[in-house]
C-alpha cells in the first residue's frame, strides 16, 4: 500500500509539472496581451506603457518568465492578477473557492443521495414502470441543454411563482447598511454546514451500533432535528439570520438546477452495479431464507453496489470547479467558473493559468483519494 502510494504521488507530481508547463505555454500562445487595451488610450504615453510592461514583466523573454513561474509555483505562489491588480491570484481563488465549493458540494451530495435511492429501486424492479420512468426522466435531464434548464427554472421559480430571487449572490438592497462582509457570513454558513455534516456522519456511525430499528430511527431524527434547531437559534440570536437566509435563498435555484441536471449520472451507475450484484448467489440465498424484499434490497444488494458510486462521488467532487462555468454564468454566481470567463475576456493570463492549475491539482488529489478509498472500502483490493 505504502509503495503504491509513494509511486502514485511521484506520478502525480510529474503529471502536474507537465500540466503546468502546457497551460503556461498555451496561455503564452494567446494572441495579444493584457496591455494591448492601453494601446488606443491617448492618456497613456509610450513611456508609461514601457513602465507598465516592465511592471507586469512583459519585457523579459518568455523562457525567463516560465522559469520564474515554475520557481514561484514550487512555493505555491501563482503570481499577481492583472485585472484585479495588486491582488494575488491565490487570494482571488481562495475568496471565490468557498462559493463554488458550497454550491457544488451541496448539489453533488443531494444528487448522489437521490441517485442512490432511485437507482437502487429501479434496478430492483427492472423493466417495470418505475424503472422505465426513472431511466427516461433521468437521461432526459442528464442530456438536457444546461442553459435551457437554467432559463426554465429562473422563469418558473423566479418569475411565475416569484418565490426565489432570479440570480446573483446577495440582495444588494438588504446589505446596504451592514457592517460585516457577505464573505465573512458565508464562511460561517459553510462552517455550520460542515458541522452539520460531521454530526450527521457521527450519528450514522453510532446508530449502527443500536439494536432495534426504532431506536436507530429515534436517535437519527431527534439528533438531526436538534442540530438544525440549535444552529437556527444561534443564527437568530446573533441577529444575522436574515442575511444568512438571503444567501441561502439565492443558493436554492442553482443547487436545484444542478441537482436535477446531475442526479441521473449517479442513478445510472447505481442501477448498473445493482443489476450486476443482484445476480450473485448470496442474493438468492437471502431471498431463499425468507428475508423481506426490502431488507435484501437495502442490506444485501445496495451495500455491495455502493463501491463504484463512492469512487465516482469523489472524482466528481474534483470536477466541481470546471463544471461551474455554465451554471455560474447563468445564475451570475460569483464563483470560480465566472472568474475564469471574466479572466478570459480580460486576458488576465496569471489568473487564467492559476485557475486551470488549481483545477488540475484538485482533480489529481480527488483521484488519489478515490484510489485510497477504493482500497480502504474493498478488502479484496490490495495494491
Amino acid at each position, binding site marked *: 500500500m505504502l509503495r503504491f502510494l509513494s509511486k502514485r504521488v511521484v506520478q502525480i507530481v510529474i*503529471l502536474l509539472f*507537465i*500540466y503546468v508547463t*502546457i497551460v503556461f505555454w*498555451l*496561455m503564452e*500562445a*494567446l*494572441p495579444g496581451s493584457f496591455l494591448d487595451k492601453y494601446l488606443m488610450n491617448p492618456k497613456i504615453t509610450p513611456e508609461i506603457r514601457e513602465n507598465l510592461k516592465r511592471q507586469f514583466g512583459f519585457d523579459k523573454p518568455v523562457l525567463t518568465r516560465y522559469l520564474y513561474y515554475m520557481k514561484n509555483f514550487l512555493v505555491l505562489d501563482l503570481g499577481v492578477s492583472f485585472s484585479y491588480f495588486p491582488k494575488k491570484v491565490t487570494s482571488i481563488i481562495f475568496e471565490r473557492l468557498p462559493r463554488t465549493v458550497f454550491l457544488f458540494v451541496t448539489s453533488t451530495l443531494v444528487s448522489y443521495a437521490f441517485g442512490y435511492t432511485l437507482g437502487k429501486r429501479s434496478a430492483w424492479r*427492472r*423493466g417495470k414502470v418505475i424503472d*422505465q420512468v426513472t*431511466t*427516461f426522466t433521468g*437521461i*432526459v435531464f*442528464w*442530456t*438536457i*441543454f*444546461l*442553459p*435551457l434548464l437554467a*432559463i426554465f427554472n*429562473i*422563469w418558473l421559480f*423566479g*418569475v*411565475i411563482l416569484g418565490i426565489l430571487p*432570479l440570480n446573483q449572490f446577495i440582495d444588494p438592497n438588504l446589505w446596504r447598511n451592514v457592517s460585516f462582509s457577505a464573505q465573512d457570513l458565508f464562511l460561517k454558513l459553510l462552517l455550520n454546514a460542515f458541522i452539520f455534516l460531521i454530526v450527521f456522519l457521527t450519528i450514522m456511525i453510532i446508530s449502527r451500533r443500536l439494536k432495534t430499528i426504532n431506536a436507530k430511527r429515534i436517535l437519527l431524527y431527534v439528533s438531526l432535528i436538534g442540530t438544525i434547531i440549535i444552529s437556527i437559534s444561534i443564527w437568530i440570536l446573533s441577529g444575522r439570520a436574515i442575511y444568512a437566509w438571503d444567501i441561502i435563498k439565492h443558493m436554492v435555484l442553482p443547487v436545484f438546477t444542478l441537482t436535477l441536471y446531475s442526479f441521473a449520472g449517479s442513478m*445510472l451507475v447505481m442501477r*448498473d452495479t445493482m*443489476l*450486476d450484484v443482484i445476480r450473485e448467489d448470496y442474493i438468492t440465498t437471502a431471498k431463499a431464507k425468507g428475508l423481506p424484499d426490502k431488507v435484501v434490497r437495502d442490506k444485501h444488494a445496495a451495500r455491495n453496489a455502493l463501491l463504484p458510486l463512492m469512487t465516482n462521488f469523489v472524482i466528481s467532487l474534483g*470536477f466541481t*470547479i*470546471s*463544471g461551474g*462555468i*455554465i451554471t455560474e*454564468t447563468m445564475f451570475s454566481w460569483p464563483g470560480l467558473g465566472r472568474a*475564469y*470567463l471574466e479572466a*478570459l475576456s480580460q486576458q488576465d493570463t496569471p489568473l*487564467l493559468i492559476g485557475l*486551470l492549475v488549481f*483545477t*488540475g491539482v484538485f*482533480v*489529481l488529489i480527488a483521484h488519489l483519494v478515490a484510489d485510497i478509498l477504493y482500497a480502504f472500502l474493498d478488502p479484496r483490493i490490495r495494491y
Partner: protein
Amino acid sequence: MVEAIIKEPLWKIRLKLWARSFKTGWELFREKKLALFGLSVIIFFAIFGLVYPLYPSIMRAVFWKDDPFGYQTFAPYDPIIGFDPHIMNHPSPPSLRHPLGTDPLGRDILSMIMYSTPREFILGITAALITVVIGTIIGASCAYYGGVIDTFFMRLADIVMLFPSLALLMVLSAFIDLTLFRLALIIGMLSGFGSITLVLKAQALTIKVRPFIEAAKSTGASDAYIIFRHIIPNILPLSFLYMMLNVTGAIFTEATLSFLGLANIRMSWGVIIQMAESSGYLMGASIGTYWWLWLPAGACITLLCSAFYFLGRGLEEIVNPRLRKR
C-alpha cells in the same frame, strides 16, 4: 477435402453471418423501448433536416403568391440573412406565416432550426467518429504492444483528462477560428486521446489473452494484421457504443460554445439561443413572453442529445453481457 464441402464463396458466408448477428442483435434491441424511442427521434430529426429545402418553397407557394417581389428581395425564409417585411415588430410570435415565430432580426425560427439540423448531425457524428477511430486504434495497440507505447499513451490520456474540456475549448477559441469542422476535429481529438482509450484498452486486454491471438501469432501473422483483423473487430461493438455516447457530448459542447458566443458558426441551435440572450430577451419576465426564442431550439438540442444517449444505452445492454437480462 474442405473445399469440396463448402462451395459458397467466402464473402457470401461472411454476409450471411453478419445478417444473422444483426438479426439477433435487432431482436434484443427491439425489446428496449427507450432505445427504440431514441432511434425514432434520430430518424425524425434526419428527415426533418433533409426536407429543409422544401420548406421555403412550400411557404412561398402558400403565403407569398401575391408578393413575389418581396419574397425575392427579402428572402424571408433564409436562415441567415432573411427578413419578413410584412411584420412590423420583430421578434413576432408564432403565426401561420412563421410557425415558430421570428427572432429579433426578423429571421424565421423554424427555418433556422431546420437549416441547422444536418449540421448538428455532421458535427456530432464527425467528432464521435474521430474519437472512436483514435481511441480504438490507440487502445488496441496499447494493449497489444504494452511497454513504452502503452506508458506514453496512458500518461497522455492522464494529461488530457486533467484539462476541463469546455475551459480548454474556450481558450482555443481565442486563437483558432472554430468553424464547424475544426470544432468537430478538436472535440474528437480531445475525447479520443482521453478517457475512451482507457476503456477500450481494458477491453482489448481481455481479447489479447484469448487463444486465437496466440494461434494467429503462431501462423506468422504480423502485428498490424493481428491488431486490425483480430483485436479491433472484437472491441468494435464497444467503440460503436462509445461513439453514440460521444455524439451527445459533441453536440452539447458545440451548443454551449455557440451559446457563449465563442465559436465561429454562422447558424446552429446554440446560436439561436445566444441571439435571444445577447439581445436581452432572456431576462426576467420576458423569458416567458418570448418563449419561442429559446424553447424550440433548446428542446431540439435536448431531444437529439438524449436520443443518441438512449440509443447508446440500448446498445450497451446488448453489447455488455453484464447488463443483459438473465
